[in-house]
């Protein structure tokens, strides 16, 4: 189980997060914490036209939450807002490629929740991502 959970891609993203940092004057930004574990993720997005021109994330927390946020920034770079809005929980799970148990689901979804909250401009609910 643990070997499965902490596959190379997760460990790699958590050790070497992609697009980590902040954007000075972001078009959209949002930050949230997972109150149960204390994971924190912030997403800064610069939108040009109808697409994600730049995205950066910052935060701290477990490998799952940070790797998932890092992967997400790679997934959405250059995508249209419609495409970003269409990203589902399943897309994230596919990208992570490891079995996420119920208790860790909130960690895995924190990045997506924060990004969608930033883009919609209203806090998104965990259950309806």
């Amino acid at each position, binding site marked *: *189980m*643990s070997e499965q959970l902490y596959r190379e891609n997760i*460990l790699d993203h958590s050790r070497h997060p992609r697009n980590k940092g902040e954007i000075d004057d972001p078009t959209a930004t949002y930050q949230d914490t997972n109150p149960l*574990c*204390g994971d924190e993720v912030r997403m800064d997005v610069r939108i040009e036209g109808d697409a994600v021109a730049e995205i950066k994330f910052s935060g*701290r927390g*477990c490998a799952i939450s940070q790797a998932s946020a890092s992967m997400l920034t790679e997934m959405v770079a250059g995508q249209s807002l419609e495409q970003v809005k269409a990203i589902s929980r399943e897309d994230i799970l596919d990208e992570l490629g490891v079995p996420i148990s119920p208790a860790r689901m909130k*960690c895995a979804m924190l990045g997506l929740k924060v990004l969608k909250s930033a883009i919609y401009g209203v806090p998104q609910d965990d259950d309806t991502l």
Partner: protein
Amino acid sequence: MATTIPAPTTLGASIRRDFPILQQENERGQRLSFLDSAASSQKPQVVIDAVSSYYAEENANIHRGVYTLSERATARYEEARQEVASFINAASPKECIFTRNTTEAINLVAQSWGRANVRNGDLIVITEMDHHSNIVPWQLLAEAVGAEIAAVGISDDGRLDLESLNRLLAREPKVVAFPHVSNALGTVNPAAEIIRRAKQAGATVLVDSAQGTPHLPVDVRALGADFLAFSGHKVLAPMGSGVLWGRLDLLQAMPPFLGGGGMIRKVEIGRSTWADVPARFEAGTPAVGDAVGLGAALRYLTRLDMAAVSAHEEALTRYALERLAELPGVTVFGPPAGEDHAGVISFTVEEIHPHDVASVLNGENVAVRAGHHCCQPLMARLGVVATTRASFSVYSDRDDVDRLAEAIMKAQRIFAA
């Protein structure tokens, strides 16, 4: 006495078979090392059976029933109350109120005693190491009546700072509420001494013994407190059982907490009068099955002998602290091994988030908790977001500790890879 009890170090392994859940193995054939007993203990077969037999043979609503089953159910319920009274050496079973858990017990005191006695401007003293269940009820009270809350500080090794206590006592607080044993650090607080000082300062004292009662022999008369709360589900009993013990004169002077059937003397549409203690505080149909299970659990623990339990856990904790000290990158919080460190160990592993540690451990069938342990102010004080916590009960043994240490090393290998 010492000759009739199992040697402390064998208590764990020799009684593991009493606990059906511990017989589970994971898909890789690894035994379960259940190291989250501070959250809720596992239940021996005698407790599970006591509950089933109650429902299969004696179940009925209690009190006021004149038929045999109801009389038997009432007798079982009151026997359980008597068992609680003996276990904590209460002066009378009337001083023991069944609640759902520690949390409800503390809320009962804060709402009933608190609203009748705590006034605008009064001081309520808690501690930096309290569980949310001994913080939030006092906050709700403070907000309702306009009281102030202050917390006794702690030292870097997780002991209560008695100087800080003294400074707060000098302000003559109305209430002092503190944890018998810290659920996050395992610190055994000098309860009798704290109570003595607090009473001298004129405070009413509540001991949150959610972690004291599972680990130590508890004698409410020797302690000298006014209220003491604990959870049945942490002392091998079913979830849904908890206890508030209170000094009889205090309880008798207290207004009701919840209103309803069973707690009244006389009801008219416009007004009511209240039943005596303890009925006054047990509104509605109680959780009789859970109380019966609690009685069985306390009998089981009494047979093991709480002094032996406490010695067993202290020895195991000492061993665990030694094992963890050997692991580079592992930081343990709380006091060093000794009498004031009960069977709860909080630690962090360098570069690995506590939740990731717990997930790797779970892969090895080692069950530990990760998080703030309902102690956010303590986490803030320690400067961490979360820790990983291993905690022991009567069935824990050295093998569990060895497996914990090995699993931590495995986590370090995975994350170092």
